[in-house]
């Protein structure tokens, strides 16, 4: 976060801090207070939409680490979510494990799948890696459909709602709080991961992998680490999604979702934790807007006018951002923030 003019850092602890001023702490506290009190004043619909946004935020953070920071483009993210979701669903439905045991297993399962499908990244990159990750999605879905006895195949698998200390997280409000807690945790850890040695290695690999290797960065290890971490996030998102519906089905993880997760990164700003957050919120809200506007448009033009409007709107927004603001909403936010930090006297005027 930016500091106001005249605020100087005096030690390493201050320099490393994510939140640096009392005002920022106060703002964060108010934000969290408002966020977790949402169930008290928001409608069921708003809570549902926000829960979905929260799950998308977790997943996009993972993709951001993998693609935004490490430069390993993945269009198989929904597939890795499916691995996480199904791992949890199987452990829960078949073995009766509690949610708190199945969640880490789901995350770990997705991480291991990420490691396996991340292996080609050592040999291939760019377009070829995209193809490999697309293949990963379809292989995962195919496996789920084939392993009928374990996964329920096309019929899916009924899953119980999460239980915490005897309390079933059943209501929309309680599940919203659960998802938001994980979304906050995911945002915090994502922000920290990219500041670690591994995070800096990811950025070096993204910017120039040859130069990174020459500097002594172990490409094999760090690329796989990025795949593992990114897919662990996807796994957590998958687990939360499956338990939200109390049902695991391959239909919850369509291929196009992987594409839209990448779109969220583009819109929000690749290689920025804030960008992942903004992107997920922006595209999910656009989705809702399109849904609400559709019937109105169909009444004016034709029923078919509403058809595919979501796909078109998403595509258009991504194209517009790629052309006019390739650094995404996060960059816009920084510009606005910088403007207000310098207000009423701009840097140029001071000079």
């Amino acid at each position, binding site marked *: 976060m930016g500091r106001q003019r005249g605020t100087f850092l005096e030690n390493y602890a201050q320099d490393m801090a994510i939140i640096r001023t009392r005002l920022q702490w106060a703002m964060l506290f108010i934000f969290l207070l408002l966020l977790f009190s949402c169930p008290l004043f928001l*409608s*069921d*619909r708003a*809570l*549902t*939409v926000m829960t*979905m946004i929260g799950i998308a935020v977790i997943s996009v953070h993972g993709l951001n680490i993998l693609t935004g920071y490490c430069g390993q483009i993945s269009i198989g993210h929904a597939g890795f979510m499916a691995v996480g979701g199904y791992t949890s669903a199987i452990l829960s439905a078949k073995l009766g494990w509690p949610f708190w045991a199945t969640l880490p297993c789901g995350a770990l399962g997705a991480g291991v799948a990420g490691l396996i499908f991340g292996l080609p990244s050592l040999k291939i990159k760019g377009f070829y890696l995209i193809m490999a990750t697309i293949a990963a999605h379809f292989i995962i879905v195919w496996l789920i*459909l084939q392993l009928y006895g374990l996964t329920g*195949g*096309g*019929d*899916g698998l009924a899953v119980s709602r999460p239980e915490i200390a005897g309390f079933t997280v059943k209501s929309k409000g309680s599940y919203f709080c659960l998802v938001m807690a994980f979304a906050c945790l995911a945002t915090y850890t994502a922000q920290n991961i990219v500041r670690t040695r591994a995070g800096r290695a990811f950025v070096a690999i993204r910017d120039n992998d040859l130069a990174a290797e020459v500097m002594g960065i172990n490409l094999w290890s760090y690329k796989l680490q990025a795949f593992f971490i990114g897919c662990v996030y996807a796994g957590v998102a998958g687990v939360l*999604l499956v338990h939200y*519906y*109390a*049902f695991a*089905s*391959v*239909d*919850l993880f*369509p291929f196009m979702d992987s594409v839209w997760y990448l779109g969220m990164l583009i819109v929000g700003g690749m290689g920025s934790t804030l960008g992942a957050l903004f992107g997920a919120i922006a595209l999910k809200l656009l*989705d*809702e807007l*399109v*849904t*609400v506007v*559709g*019937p109105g448009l169909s009444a004016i033009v034709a*029923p*078919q006018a*509403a*058809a*595919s*409007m*979501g*796909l078109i709107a998403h595509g258009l927004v991504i194209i517009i951002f790629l052309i006019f603001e390739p650094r995404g909403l996060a960059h816009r936010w920084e510009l606005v923030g910088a403007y207000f930090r310098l207000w009423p006297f701009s840097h140029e005027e001071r000079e």
Partner: protein
Amino acid sequence: MARNKLALIACLVIAVVALSLFTVRSSYAKTLYVGGTMALTGAYAEDTAAVLAGYQDYVKYVNETKNLAPWRNEKFPSDISLELLWRDDELKPPKALSIYEELKAKGMLVFRCSGSPQALALKDRLFEDGFGAPSMATGPYLLTPPQSVFTYYPIYTDSLAAVADWFMENWKEKRKPRVAYLTADNAMGRSIVVPELTNYLKKVGYEFVGTQFVPLVPTSPPTTQLMWLKKKKVDLALGVMINPGSQPTVKEMVRLGMGPNQPYKIVFGVPAPGHTAVFAAAMGKLGDGYVCAGSFPPMDQLSIPGIKFCNDLQNKYHPGKQVTHIMYEAGIIEAMTQTEALRLAMQKVPFEKLTPRAVLENGFYRIKGLETGGMTSTPLTYGKGDIEGIDKVRVDQVQNGKVVKLGSWPCRHLYKRK
């Protein structure tokens, strides 16, 4: 100038008043909503557009006439109007969920789930909130428990069992007929490759040969798979295919000399997604012998009361813009079911006290023998533990390029969820 300004102001005032008069809905004070999610984006966009048109026309019909169907004497309450609420769920369960919450908040008392993924994701929530919902989803083996998503056509295994029953009744040779699955290579297509159906086929006297998979929409003719059937001397091929899959498959069959009227005798049977009406219109006599079970009657058979009703509605509300897709009937059936549930519920509970649960228990569960004018295989009957409205399977065949009804066979209820 001052006069001009005054004239302009006067015109504006008149326009505003006139506009407000036009927008006042003085005729009805009470409104009930029908509708739900529609999958207008994706593989079922064309089908769903026809379903939506059916809903729209039926709502207009009830609001104008207060009748429920030409063959029914009951009336919808005159002081209550129907309004259609819908949203495009793009075939995505998460989107269907937020749509459900939105429409619920708007005061809907009944709902609609577009397909299986949406219905499976919503079924528990619908039941918890007491919502009844007709759906194009799969059958009771997946939708129960609980019991508030209602279907109006048979599941694929029961449909194919009916095709097998019909074929066996007409089998003349002494040897056992050989049967194989030739089905789409996706969840829908694979849903019939289950021991329950295979065991049934064996039980009624078939020799089961094996399974061949074809892409849902083949990018090249499935020659290898068809040659395999020929080599194994298969008499009846059963599979789940949509028309973009079944049409190229049957074309290749004809090219290879396979079919009921070809040198190599074989019959190909599919359940409802491969509607004969759509198939015959596209294939003509080339598709002769193709069998489809569990579908609706074609839209040109005006002798059927339900079809005549569909035709009359279209002529009345959008003449010249006829919806010829067979799923228009599904829209009429669903809207009719929702309206009937609301009407029945109002017999027990006053309008002001209606809740989704009241409509489920006093409406949907009390629908017994709802006559659909021949559009469904049998009149619809629902109740607690009975969410599959029909108990027979209609079987059609393409003969001389036209759809011919072969008859109805009982629902075998073969598939049970483990």
